[in-house]
């Protein structure tokens, strides 16, 4: 997994690429920290460049969302396509995290 973060106005946009699996747990923590410590109240996780996601990867998205909610911020997922879209459709993650 790789990611880039850019801030514009009140939105923090994090683009994640590669494969999001159990092994990325440590690196994903830095994204969670960005969400918790940043000034922005809106967070967009762009999953458009993720090739594949496993259950631990979904868990990380849940963790990021939980962090945002606890900090009274809004998190949403974008760029949901390919394998990620299939997993999210099957597991109805849209009922837990807003998807735009």
């Amino acid at each position, binding site marked *: 997994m790789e990611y880039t973060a850019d801030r514009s106005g009140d939105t923090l946009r994090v683009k994640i690429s590669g*494969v999001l*699996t*159990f092994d990325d747990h440590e690196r994903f923590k830095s994204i969670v920290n960005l969400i918790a410590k940043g000034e922005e109240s809106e967070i967009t996780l762009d999953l458009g460049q993720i*090739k*594949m996601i*496993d*259950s*631990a990867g*979904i*868990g*990380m998205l*849940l*963790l990021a969302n*939980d962090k945002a909610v606890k900090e009274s911020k809004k998190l949403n997922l974008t760029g949901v396509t390919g*394998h990620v879209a299939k997993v999210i*459709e*099957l*597991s*109805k*993650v849209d*009922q*837990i995290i807003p998807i735009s």
Partner: protein
Amino acid sequence: MSANPKPVAGDASAPIQANDARVLIVDDLRSSRMLIGSVLKAAGFTNLDYAVDGLDALERFRDNEPDVVVLDIVMPRMDGFEVCHEIRNTLKSDVPILIQSGVQEGNQRVRAFDEGASDLVSKPINAAELVSRLRLHIERRRMIDRLQRYQHRMEEELHAAESMQMSLLKTPEELAELTAPRGAEVEAFYRASHKLGGDLWEAFEVDEDRFGLLMFDLSGHGVNAAINAFRLHMLINSYKKLRKDPAAWLAQVSNDLYRMLPVEHFSTGFYGIFDRRDRTLTYAGAGAPTPVLIRGDEAIELDGSGVIMGCLPSAEYETRSIQLQPCDQLCLYSDALYEDFDDPTQSLEVGDLVGHIRTGLEQREAAGFADALVRSILGHFPDSMPDDLTILRLEVK
């Protein structure tokens, strides 16, 4: 109570003491033996043994294996190289062996290592060097022993836990006893990726005409997932009244998981009820990999979707239903069957799986459906898998 309790085996925090190590000193010259002995005694070593030549050394070694050997090379009857060779190759011991060698004897030094020596100490003896090297090797050896004991203990505990987890699962006989009178046959396969796993399947009675079949895949694998699987198993056997209603039952279990699991953990699930009276399967899914129904030449994909369990305080599911026919084969599986994270392009779509499922059904006589299915996909049955794998087959009679 002792003020200094003896460290127990596997206690990784206990300090390593070298002074009580049993040292076998092998030298044909009495004066050399006495010199080494007195150096070691002065350094605090208390457990010394002496051998006067190679054969004597091996005899003493066999009687009472030392913790470390200090070995001379040139000796009558059997030289140091041969002793070293015997200890390694015949006695199969990896005890540290320190060979005494003069600095100018280059060939000897190389040969000493070839024969299995752990280290060299200079001859004539340098007291400080001898003691330092001895301590180093004793401590290293004891550290390895300790890690090996620890590893062995962990393996035994994992093995015991694995047996416990396997004992939660119904045997083929128990399955037959439940499903045969209810007009179906169920074959189940489960294997954890690392002894313990987070997959769980179960089948139970709903009433005399119906049985329930369920499958869960908890996020993650290994010990964490297994502990959650044990907790989940306890939940499964509660709520007997809700068993008739797949959506309500999944919702209840999900709500319990929501309170039980950390935020990043969840489970996918499938729960179906087969009714022999009208051969219907009533089911609900929670992110379950698409169940595949094989009916003659037809392949029907069931809808296993639904919000993953344990993520919402009050989850809702949809009960779906499908009319089955005699000889229908329903296949349920965990995602380990089709996902390939090392090479995402190798991951299979449901459509790709159908052909393999057919092959699995055709060739299941040999070693079961799961074995034939995995062989069809991978070309062989692997010794280990990257994720927990569960495969269930339900055949309508």
